[in-house]
């Protein structure tokens, strides 16, 4: 193959590993940006309404954010709706993002968490104690450590909405009880109780899996 053609193919392939893909990886703390200047430039393009840049940003983050949405919603359609609403908000408010205050991925994640919470609030989260819950989760291996993210997400989805929301915010997102109380409009003690019950229920689920 002529050198020129090889070069073109390489360029085309490399394009698919663009900076926003790197940003997507950073989302879970694996890779940092190498080419921050280009990243800022692409954010500006997104703000200016460049559909190509917007699509790139969507492609780079969609998997991580879809997983995030699925942790908050047991129903896949609700998760899709949240994903859609979240991205619309991201593109709408991207001009408010300040790179001095943090990484783009962190900002986008925060927008999505707020979107999920807003959507949950609309559906009125039930924080009452639920004793009768479905433990029918079936797992084909009996080693807890081999549970992958998808399995864990399914387990979290089995939690009642109130338990699940507090668990996500406290354990995975790193909020404290005061922040959770402010976000959800509940008391700190309710937040603590919901977390404790969520953990107990998860433990029962794991015990059931390990049997």
């Amino acid at each position, binding site marked *: 193959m002529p*050198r*020129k053609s090889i*070069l*073109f193919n*390489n*360029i*085309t392939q*490399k*394009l698919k590993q*663009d900076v926003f893909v790197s940003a997507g*990886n950073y989302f*879970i*703390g*694996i890779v940092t940006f190498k*080419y921050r*200047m*280009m990243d800022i*430039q*692409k954010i500006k*393009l997104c*703000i*200016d*309404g*460049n*559909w*190509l*840049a*917007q*699509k790139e940003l*969507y492609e780079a983050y*969609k*998997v*991580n954010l*879809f*997983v995030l949405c699925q942790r908050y919603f047991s129903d*896949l359609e609700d998760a*899709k709706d949240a*994903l*859609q609403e979240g*991205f*619309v908000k991201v*593109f*709408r408010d991207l*001009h408010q993002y300040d790179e001095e205050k943090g990484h783009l991925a962190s900002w986008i994640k925060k927008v999505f968490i707020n979107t999920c919470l807003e959507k949950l609030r609309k559906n009125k989260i039930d924080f009452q104690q639920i004793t009768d819950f479905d433990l029918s989760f079936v797992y084909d291996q009996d080693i*807890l450590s081999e*549970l*992958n*993210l*998808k399995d*864990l997400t399914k387990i979290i989805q089995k939690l009642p909405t109130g338990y699940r929301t507090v668990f996500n915010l406290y*354990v*995975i997102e790193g909020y404290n009880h005061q922040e959770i109380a402010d976000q959800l409009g509940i008391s700190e003690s309710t937040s603590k109780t919901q977390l404790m019950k969520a*953990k107990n229920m*998860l*433990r029962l689920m794991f015990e059931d899996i390990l049997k």
Partner: protein
Amino acid sequence: MDDKNNNLEKFFRQKFNQKIEPQDWNLPDNDVWDNIAAQIPTDKKKRRIGMLPLFIFGGGLLVATLLLGYDNYLKTNEITVLQQELKDCANLAIANDNTEINEPKPKNIDQVQDDISVKETKLAYEGTKSEFQHSLAKKKITRSLFLNSSNQLNSQENEVMKTPLNHSDINDRNMVEKLEEEQKTFTTITFPGKLYKYPLSPIVSKFAKDKSALNLFITPINPKPNKSHPFLVGPNVGYIAWQDRIQGTFDNPLSELLVKEVTGPSVSYGLSLSKVLNKRVVFNTGINYYERNQLSQYAINLPYSTVDEIAVGAEFENRFQHSLPTGLGSINTNLVLSRSASSIVQNNENVYLDFALSNHIKAISIPLTLSYFVKEEGNGLFLQGGLTHEWIVQNRIKEVETESHHQFVKDKSIIVDYNDAQINRLNTSVLAGIGYQKSLTANLGITISAQYGFALNNTYQSNAYQHKIDQLNAQIRLLKSW
């Protein structure tokens, strides 16, 4: 119990900090992106477009106010001179009267001037034609004082109106000529109320405060305007926002590298020529000149090969050739990246480059349009439609910028080869718009109009790609009738 809790939290945190493998998950459907794309707000664009009419309106208002003010300023100067001549006549007449009749006059020159000024001010306020005729008669009587040495003003008034000037009695022949000229010139009066329609004019406001200036609105109407206005000629200035209309996709395999392409706005200026066809319809043509830039921006990712690099002195070079797409045809680029021999680089290490270039176009256009005035030609709202033909005089690559984000790249150079024959030089658009015309004076008018131009042919096309450029045009024209 706490340990168990902490272990559980730690377990989940660790798991959710792992990299997410897309293949393990149900990916969102394609319609999710379609829905997002449909909902992405375009407020910013709307705001930009929304401000444009305000700017045009504000600019038009400013220009109209300045023109009106300047026009009044010219009138002021002209009439002040005439008024001064009138007073001089009166002074000379009194002086002459004193010497020829040998009768003592109680009034001095200042008193006479004051009398004339007060009288003129009063007449201008009352504003009736009969009063003005009376004023004119007075002027002629004043003249008769000079000519006939008579002080019986009222009784001689009618006679003076009928009696031709007797040049034989005049010592100062130049003064008589001036008076005759004055008689021809002062035939009507324009009332100040007409100018109060333009409260923004500082000069008019000044007149309103200064009553003695009211008689400055006496308008000379020599020469008489040609009411048919067969031809209207004048300069114009406009602002054109361009809108790319693209069909299809680039044939070029590197089209993915193109991240942004926009056509910037233009300022146009030229000469307008209009012909009044009938009471409501006017044919417009002329010639306009403008320049516009089309910016193309690329994000390039190149593997820097240490195997293929060429040694040039103490440096190594890698050379690349691309054919990149633009909306105005493909460009060929020759890129050279160099590094010092001591720099550290891995074979096929990626080099990211930001690359931008600007097509600079110079063009002239000839509009052929018809204006239909809602009320009557020359004033008020009109609708406009027709064609405009654009001839691209020059199309060249104006600016090329390259920026790399790598330490090892010591130097870079890029040569661009562009064949400007790829574009169609003659482009035609259908124009439709609306405008407003206002007469400033008998022979001078101003027009503010906005038009949308829908391109009929492609500025650039290839097998699978068609590029048309539509326009939104706002224009201000000054028109002088001939």
